[in-house]
């Protein structure tokens, strides 16, 4: 029957039917985001005014509308939760990155995160240097691409800050970067950048903050859920680096971040003898601290879920927003002879928040 009846039809009718069909299919497919937007509404995740926390997207007012006075907005911070099941509770995560160089691998890994992107806000702070300008342009291009791309890949909001660096010493050469004398100035400037980024973007609705250095380029897509599942105030993964072993003629991994450590008696003694403005840092032969470093605790055969209590943390960790809200920040001055992220762990402990580390959960640093 069908071929016969079809043949009887007039071509214009068929053409119209076909157009209708195609139109319907396009409409059907392109409208796929409708399942996402109501969920976003549930978190109350949009602001109605430009004057709103940067961790929320806002609705632009129509140009022909007269702008009314900004509304009075209530934030119910009692209802803000940080739990081991963050997705179920629709907890928002703010990912903060001080950016000096942009690596495409960094952005690609970010896009692969399996945590619902509509619950993720991003924050970047970029120095106003030549290198920073380049990173800024690269980042901007990627952000534009992602935020106008498929809706389920879009992040809730992206905030990009620029700031003059305070010290002229921040040349990022590998050689120069790790000299002890420069370390203090460099890390103080870094601490200030981190604080500027943190305190202007945290807003009233953030539950978790993931500090992710710009040179962390590889990690499991479930990073946020995995770390949050431990439900501890501060938790740091172990930072390793992939490199080409010329002896074995194969790719291998090696420890990278030395700032995740457990304090030692020697370090405490050293600190006690130091002047008020001296700092004690890891990784220098002229200052042996004998602290237990988490990078050397990695054991591929052991339980991957092992956690250890830390006294100092590095630049990549997940933290409950209330830790920062209570005042734990990155000291830009020697705080108990510690500075920046290590000082942060100390300040958090003064506020009764514990730091933990996962020696067998690896993330990878870029190889320069």
């Amino acid at each position, binding site marked *: 029957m*069908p071929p016969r009846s*079809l*043949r009887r039809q*007039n*071509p*214009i009718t*068929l053409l119209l039917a076909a157009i209708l069909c195609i139109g319907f299919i396009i*409409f*059907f*497919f*392109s*409208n*796929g*985001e409708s*399942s996402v*937007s109501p969920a976003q509404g549930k978190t109350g995740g949009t602001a109605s005014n430009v*004057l*709103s*926390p*940067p961790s929320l*997207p*806002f*609705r*632009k007012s*129509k140009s022909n509308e007269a702008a009314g006075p*900004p*509304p*009075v*907005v*209530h*934030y*119910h*911070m009692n209802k803000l939760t940080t739990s081991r099941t963050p997705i179920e509770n629709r907890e928002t995560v703010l990912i903060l990155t001080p950016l000096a160089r942009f690596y495409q691998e960094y952005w690609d890994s970010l896009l692969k995160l399996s945590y619902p992107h509509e619950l993720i806000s991003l924050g970047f702070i970029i120095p*106003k240097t030549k290198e920073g300008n380049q990173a800024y342009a690269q980042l901007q291009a990627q*952000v534009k691409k992602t*935020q106008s791309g498929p809706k389920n890949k*879009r992040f809730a909001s992206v*905030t*990009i*800050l*620029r*700031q*003059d660096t305070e010290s002229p010493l921040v040349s990022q050469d590998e050689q120069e970067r790790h000299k002890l004398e420069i370390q203090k100035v460099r890390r103080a400037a870094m*601490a*200030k950048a981190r*604080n*500027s980024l943190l*305190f*202007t973007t*945290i807003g*009233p609705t953030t539950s978790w903050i993931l500090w992710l250095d710009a040179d962390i380029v590889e990690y499991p897509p479930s990073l946020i859920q995995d770390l949050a599942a431990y439900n501890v105030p501060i938790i740091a993964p172990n930072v390793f680096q992939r490199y080409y072993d010329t002896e074995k003629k194969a790719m291998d991994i090696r420890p990278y971040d030395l700032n995740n450590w457990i304090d030692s008696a020697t370090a405490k003694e050293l600190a006690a003898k130091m002047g008020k403005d001296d700092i004690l840092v890891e990784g220098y032969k002229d200052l042996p601290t004998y602290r237990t470093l988490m990078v050397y605790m990695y054991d591929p055969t052991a339980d991957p879920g092992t956690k250890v209590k830390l006294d100092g943390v590095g630049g990549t960790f997940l933290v409950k927003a209330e830790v*920062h*809200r*209570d*005042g734990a*920040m990155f*000291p*830009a*001055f020697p705080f108990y002879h510690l500075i920046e992220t290590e000082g942060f762990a100390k300040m958090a402990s003064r*506020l009764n928040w514990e730091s933990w580390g996962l020696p067998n959960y690896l993330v990878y640093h870029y190889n320069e």
Partner: protein
Amino acid sequence: MLPLHASSPKGKMHRHAYSSGHAAYPSMSGTFSIQPHTFQPRSPPSLRFRRQLIQRLLLAGSLFFLCFFYFVPDLRPNLGFSPLSLFTSNEDTQLETVRYYDLNNVQGTARGWEREERILLCAPLRDAAPHLDMFFSHLKNLTYPHNLIDLAFLVGDSKDNTLTKLSDKLAELQADPDPRQHFGEISIMEKDFGQKVNQDVESRHGFAAQAGRRKSMAQARNWLLSAALRPTHSWVYWRDVDVETAPTTILEDLMRHNKDVIVPNVWRPLPDWLGGEQPYDLNSWQESDTALALADTLDEDAVIVEGYAEYATWRPHLAYLRDPYGDPDMEMEIDGVGGVSILAKARVFRSGVHFPAFSFEKHAETEGFGKMAKRMKFSVVGLPHYTIWHLYEPSVDDIRHMEEMEKERKAKEKEEQAKKEREEKLKDTFDSKSGDWEKEKAAVQDMVRKAKEESKEKEKPAAELTKNEAQAAVQPNKDQKIQEARGEDEKPKPQPAQ
């Protein structure tokens, strides 16, 4: 389906059939065919079956994908924006998700109102309903452009109607017919910290409660600030709601000094029996060697609180240096700051300085804030002669004292009343005589003066008139002295002529 059809020979036939009938309109040839009364050969069965099969397969395929994509939305191919979304919801095009800020533009300068610098005004509130009316009248009177002021409140652990009253007041403020009265972003954070300490004056200022209270206050301040600070803010102003009197230009006045952290002097008015006025905020001070030595002897978690005998620090306090007639622009370097009214550049807070909720160099909250700002090499300044006035809330002792005084006053009044009545009586009986005596005295004096003047005019020539005048001026003085010597009752001036 379409390509199948197009390939069929049918079309040609239509055209052929029609073109004969409508030769006059060649352009329309063959597009319309309503009755193709022509013979159409059937295609061979094998071809027909194949076509049927293809059609069915396509139909089944499209149905399958339709169902599949319906249930698995994540795998749908993206074909761009839905055409209908332009009409139904503007969510997509109107939603702004990316923001760029340059923090170099918000460093804060001496003349912020000209550069349109935004101020964040923070006020932590707890059981503050009685003070809100006063606070809002201060807000309305601020001369700094209101649209540049963002308001942020943290309401927590309140047992009264602070929250509802605050919301009503703010809604009223933003609904003001004058658009210049409208403020910028207004946020109310609701957060309970479960504080056990009472907010009444006695428990608030008791020494034992201080350290714990200061720490939880610091926590509230940090939560408020971190939730409300934006990359657009150049300044942050902390203001207590219980300030009674402050200049309306306070923001500009403090800003003009272009310091990182600046506080005015805070005093409070007192009832006359307590001295009329008193320094209120003792948390603004300069560090002293005694205090530093004291700090070294205390353990890590101890908090030095100023203004209590338990810690004698001998620090110079901003409050005690006030001179009511001093230059209000005079500055003084300080180390600890009081929290009643602090204007700070936002970059101070951005760089990480906050209100320590732990013992930072033996201090917490606003004093610790001052210490930390100093540690990070920011300028911290107080204005000893620029004063704002805190509300006077009588303490329990004061209230008791005042009740006693009230009693005393009433008793005294009664006594005075009785005394007056007695005097009235006395006056009624003896008054006429004293009046007579007055009249007689005046008459006698008059006569004496006249006689004197007459004799003088006769004796002295006109040239010595000046001397004469001087004498005349002395004359009443003498009289007065005499009268005073006679006693209080006989003073002529207050006595009404009877």
